[in-house]
């Protein structure tokens, strides 16, 4: 168990290092770092000074070493727009993104689990047909358009909820529902097909033959086994939510990392873009690591192998 944990930690660190290297490669080799890191409208003398202070006049391998050391110190440079540490700018926006992602995840997992289970257990009925039709439609709907339609209906037409903003519960409902629909559609379909698979298993037949109550079978045999694919999916979706909320945050003017990244791109604020990508990737790795550890508790078959 300890060995497994250490091995996965090591792999996670390698991944973070890989992300850092990819970002370095993209910004320094694919693009022209001088135009990326110098604010628009700088004079030639300023450009020369900044080039020097960022070490952009050094050979590439030296730049890489400096870059990695800076990141280990949490130093991504100063934001051009805000004038202070880019990492701090990003971390300030983190709570808003986490609040939105976790609310959306909660709504989506709750509705998706119920809908998926109902669709599988009432197979062939009108409930399954409706749920699956909604899930297929929801899967094809672009989140940002759904967000705009929610604003059109609930804010502009009915005046029930604000069209954007941040701070109160009423601001949270529309963006969380928009992202929640995306979670719902992926989860409902997955859960339905995995429960249908589980129902075919021998241990379900045995449990039924033993004369166990259907509720006992549902809680002990079906739910426990369905938990594994759900966990995998939720981990994947969490990652997508952290990055994928870029458009939703933009639509609703939600002050999270996604909207910050777009503002930074529009203003060519590269230190902030880099820091945002790094934080996002680090969170993603952290979530995957926790899920891998969670499996150990969920599935004894994995535990014995680890």
């Amino acid at each position, binding site marked *: 168990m300890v060995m497994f944990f250490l091995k996965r930690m090591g792999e996670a660190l390698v991944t973070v290092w890989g992300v850092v290297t990819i970002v370095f490669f993209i910004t320094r080799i694919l693009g022209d770092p001088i135009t990326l890191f110098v604010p628009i409208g700088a004079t030639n003398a300023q450009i020369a000074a900044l080039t020097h202070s960022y070490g952009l006049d050094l050979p590439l391998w030296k730049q890489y070493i400096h870059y990695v050391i800076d990141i280990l110190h949490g130093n991504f440079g100063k934001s051009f727009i805000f004038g202070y540490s880019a990492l701090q700018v990003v971390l300030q926006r983190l709570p808003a993104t986490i609040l939105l992602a976790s609310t959306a995840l909660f709504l989506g997992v709750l509705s998706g689990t119920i809908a998926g289970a109902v669709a599988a257990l009432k197979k062939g009925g009108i409930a399954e047909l409706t749920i699956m039709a909604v899930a297929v439609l929801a899967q094809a709907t672009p989140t940002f*358009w759904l967000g705009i339609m929610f604003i059109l209906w609930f804010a502009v037409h009915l005046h029930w909820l604000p069209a954007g903003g941040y701070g109160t519960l009423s601001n949270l409902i529309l963006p969380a529902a928009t992202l929640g629909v995306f979670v719902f559609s992926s989860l409902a379909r997955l859960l339905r097909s995995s429960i249908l698979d589980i129902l075919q298993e021998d241990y379900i037949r045995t449990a039924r033959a033993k004369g166990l109550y259907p509720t006992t079978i549902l809680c002990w045999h079906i739910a426990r086994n369905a938990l594994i694919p759900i966990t995998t999916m939720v981990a994947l979706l969490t990652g997508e939510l952290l990055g994928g909320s870029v458009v939703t945050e933009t639509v609703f003017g939600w002050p999270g990392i996604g909207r910050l990244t777009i503002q930074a791109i529009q203003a060519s604020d590269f230190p902030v873009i880099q820091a945002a990508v790094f934080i996002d990737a680090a969170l993603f790795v952290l979530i995957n690591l926790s899920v891998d550890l969670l499996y150990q508790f969920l599935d004894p078959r994995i535990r014995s192998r680890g």
Partner: protein
Amino acid sequence: MKDFFKTLLRSYSGCAGFILLSSFVVLALIAPWINLPDPIIGNLHERLLPPDWTGLHPLGTDPVGRDILSRLIYGGQTTLMVAFSAVALGAILGTGIGILAGFSGGIIDRILMRIIDIQLSFPLMMLTLLVVAVLGPSIGNVIIVLALTSWTRYTRIIRGQVLVLKEREFILSAKAIGASAFWIMRQHILPNVLTPVMVIATLELARIIIMMAALSFLGLGVQPPDPDWGQMLAEGRVYISTAWWIVLFPGLAILLTTLAVNLLGDWLRDYFDPKTRLKR
């Protein structure tokens, strides 16, 4: 091929997806020959006209007086062109690397799989934004970026298939008679993995269409004045309280296209899946 269409006709959803998608493709192809109002130059006297099913502008006009229907059809041209190119590029890249990794094994395989692990732990949207921000938005760059987000999905599955294939007798005998590795990969392995490639490509098409619309919506995809669905949504957002038709129709276009592709993709997957095939 005959069997293919026969089973397609028997599935409502597969059939619906096929008809919907092919009509979008045909519409995009014949766009220049239907007598549509200019999608780029508008008439300011006709700005923000609501939909009029029988008139000159059946779906209304936008803030600079351009016909929405015409922009939707030309936007469809751009969307399908970019999406198909990105899918093709991603499929070629992913399949090639998958075959290489699976067939050569050893250190090459390990390095390639590690790269995939790293890329998969990178939120796709962030990767896309970063590359577009560095390269600058243009149609070519959008195609490259979308293909880059896509290749890993092929590589993993194809590699697995190749690992099984390479132990098969026809490959072993090709090796025994001294065929070169490249020749075996091209002649024996590639044709045997084309089926999963087709299924993944169809499902990827849907994801890529949505992602492309998102990029254009954020102003990082297709640039004005070229019409594009995501960009039309972004422009219409400002007029949401007065002119709902500008945001409704481009979104519906994205939804219907993605839906069509998804339905077709799900059907294709079942069609090629030996488990469900036995039931037919």
